């Protein structure tokens, strides 16, 4: 559906100059595809390049096999001829128009197709109904609440049945409760309409909940592309591992490889890990384990074996459904998600990092 090849836009020379470098990715038809990354990682620049609001320096982009940008051949289709839908971070709902006029605007602007007023009315009202704003049609858009403006922006983006819907942090201006609600509604609408969506966010929980696939970006480059499950459970580098979810990252040195398992020398001592990504690329040099996978036992209870360490609970925070413990082992602090009431003071404990849940990854720069 959307095909992006070596897309590059530089604002200033050098790695720290911002912009995007050499991005390539494909979005399949009907897919909900998310660009996720911290602020300044280039995700919005990427989206705006797809929209035609920015002109990249190099690369090539096609939508359904139509070339919309090709630096080598000097092709740049302007935004108003790409026929996309876009929801802006600020919604950009025009306050001087009614809800209906906002929605009907893309239909009135369509080239080549001249619709009668009745047809425009029918299509716009149908879309307003889909987002639940039909009764507000004659109202001024300035009178809508934040959540309603968001729906209107979505209606405007969808009304002309674009092949591609672009969403630029559309939920970031809503308060927490509304955000959850809009999140599931957005997902429902996208599947219902069947539109391909490219979604930009810095909020990992949003990305995990909504996406079919996620591209994690950092410093203008894509760090990993995968399903939410892959991204969480098999991060291929330290940036992705620490950006998504809570994690314990133990940097060290590769000691030995053995049947898809590796042993890494860390500050705790040698740690045995899985190494599913250990093919080509830099050798793994860090061990990663999520707090919920660490096993806690009272001191002296576990059998001495691989990946067992003695430590002391030095801090705990009650999270409601669970408690998070900080266990100190020498100079290293390990986060452990455990049951509430398991420990309630500084106690000596034994930690077990199950090798099948411990991942060896590349220890790239962060």
């Amino acid at each position, binding site marked *: 559906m959307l095909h992006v090849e070596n897309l590059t836009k530089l604002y200033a020379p050098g790695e720290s100059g911002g912009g995007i470098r050499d991005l390539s990715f494909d979005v399949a038809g009907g897919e909900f595809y998310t660009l996720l990354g911290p602020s300044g990682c280039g995700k919005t620049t990427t989206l705006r390049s797809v929209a035609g609001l920015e002109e990249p320096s190099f690369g090539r982009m096609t939508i359904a096999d139509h070339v919309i940008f090709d630096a080598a051949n000097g092709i740049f289709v302007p935004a108003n001829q790409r*026929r996309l839908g876009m929801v802006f*971070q*600020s919604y950009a709902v*025009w*306050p*001087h128009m009614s809800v209906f006029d906002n929605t009907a605007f893309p239909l009135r602007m369509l080239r080549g197709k001249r619709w009668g007023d009745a047809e425009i009315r029918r299509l716009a009202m149908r879309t307003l109904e889909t987002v639940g704003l039909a009764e507000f049609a004659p109202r001024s858009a300035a009178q809508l609440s934040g959540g309603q403006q968001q729906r209107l922006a979505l209606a405007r983006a969808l009304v002309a049945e674009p092949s591609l819907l672009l969403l630029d942090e559309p939920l970031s*201006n809503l308060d927490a409760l509304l955000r959850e609600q809009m999140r599931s509604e957005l997902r429902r609408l996208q599947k219902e309409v069947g539109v391909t969506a490219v979604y930009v966010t810095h909020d990992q929980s949003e990305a995990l909940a909504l996406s079919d696939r996620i591209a994690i970006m950092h410093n203008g480059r894509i760090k990993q592309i995968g399903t939410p499950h892959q991204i969480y459970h098999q991060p291929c580098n330290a940036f992705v591992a620490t950006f998504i979810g809570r994690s314990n990252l133990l940097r060290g040195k590769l000691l030995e490889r053995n049947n898809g398992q590796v042993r890494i020398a860390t500050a705790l001592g040698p740690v045995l890990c899985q190494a599913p990504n250990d093919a080509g690329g830099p050798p793994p040099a860090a061990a990663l384990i999520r707090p919920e996978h660490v096993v806690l036992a009272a001191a002296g209870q576990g059998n001495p074996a691989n990946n067992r360490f003695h430590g002391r609970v030095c801090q705990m925070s009650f999270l409601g459904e669970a408690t998070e413990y900080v266990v100190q082992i020498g100079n290293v602090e390990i986060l452990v998600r455990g049951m509430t009431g398991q420990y309630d003071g500084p106690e000596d404990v034994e930690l077990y990092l199950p090798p099948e849940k411990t991942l060896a990854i590349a220890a790239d720069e962060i």
Partner: protein
Amino acid sequence: MTMAVARGGGRSSTASYYPQVIVLIVLFCVGVIPPFVFLAYSSLHELDPSGAFGAFTLGHFAAIFASRSFSSVIVNSAVYSLGSALLALVIGAAQAWLAERTDAALRQVLYVSSIVSLGIPYVLYIVAWILFLGKAGPVNAALQHMFGGTEPYISVYSLGGMIFVEGLLWSPLAFLLLSPVFRNSDASFEEAASICGAGLLSTLRYVTLGMARPALLALGLLVFIKASESFEVPALVGLPGSTRVLTSTIYQRLTLDMPPDVGSASAFGVLLLVVMAILLQIYGRVVAQTHRYQTVTGKGFRPRVIRLGRWRYAAGALIITIPFIVVVIPLATILWAALLPYYQAFSIKAVPLLGFGNFVQVLNSPSFRGAIVNSLVLGAAVATLVTVLSAVAGWCVARRVAGARLLDGLAALPLVFPAIVLGLAFLEIFVHAGSRLYGSLLSLVVVSMVAYMPYGLRYAQLGVIQIHPELEEAAAIAGARQARTFIRVVLPLLIPALISCWLFVFLLAVRAVSLMLLLAGPDSQVVAVTLFDFWNNGQVGELAALGCVWTAIMTVFCIAFLVVARRYQLPIG
């Protein structure tokens, strides 16, 4: 738009009582109430030949409504104000959009030209256009050359000429007031239109102009009001061609008619006040409407520049043309006139006559130097006094202390006075109250303070609103008393607003002609009035030379004003 009647900002504090509010209210009453009383009184009374008030009469009003010229005066006023507003709006909006929203070539030129034009005295500007478009001007000469004949093709002394000059006069301010409107509008509104398939012109028409409509309406109304109360263009361009509007009629009754008819002039003044009060009321409502379109702004707010593509150079040409008309032509005309011993249209033959004789004469004459010094002293005194009063009054109004609304209302009252009417009202006060102030520089200071207090107050009030009340509350918690908090916390934060307030009032005070015209005496000649007298005496060369010198001095002040205003992101004007 400091004329905004909006009252806003800050939590309303508990009604607390401040002695300084009482002092300010008394002070404002003394300045503001007498002009109304004297104007109304003299419009309703006969005037004895001795100059004292006689019997009560409605005759002045009756005569006005009965006169045949009255309806033409009203129609002229309306057409003149409307035409000027439209012209200023079109030129100003085009410039603001090009400069703020597009990548048009050379757009920086617009700021420079607007700044320079703010420093040109009205009289000088108007005279330049009269010379340029007049019978002996280059435009008529060129038209005669092209189409033959010896009759002038265009007459500047007409309603069209008045609209043209007044519209141009206001276009730089329209530009400066509209550019923040375009600058601060979030680019995503236009980007959204682009995504929806709208091209450049559709986006401009449906989105950019649609969203700016309340601001455009407010500005149009502001120029309409300013044109209605303007005096210089009606007097210099209108009167020679007998195109009379309300303000020039007042002037005519007072100075050109023999004997002067103070009663009739006052009655006209009262009518004009009523018109102004209604217009200002409407204006207040329209300004309140401009805030209706405020919406959510994303964190990624960025005013983006629209790529004009192949239109870029066409826009560049327009950008060169507008300042050429607004600034270069009048200044060149004035410079030409200043260098000639007696005025004649531009020609190669006249070049050998050029010289600095007029400059030498103007700079050597003690009376002209006196006028320059008087103007500067007047401007500085008025600006300083208004700024000091505004700082205290502005705080009281912004923090809504007890009595603040009364204070605000009183200070805003002089806005309904067109300058010529305020001058007339104070003339009557000085004459009848037998004051020794009449004709002194001090009298001009007092009158100017009353006239410009509303602007100063609005500046200071906006400045205070930007200071969060918690900053003062923190000082109070830390143990500081009211006065100390004001001096140590509020004033330092208010300084940028006050500097720009000072400069703005200064520029207004030295530019004004109509306010001073009826009041300036031999000891209190100021530059603006001197220029006006020069023109009436036909001393074009001296006028132009003095004007050039004065424009140079004022340009420095204008630049200072804009630098301060831009630096601290204050609303201009």
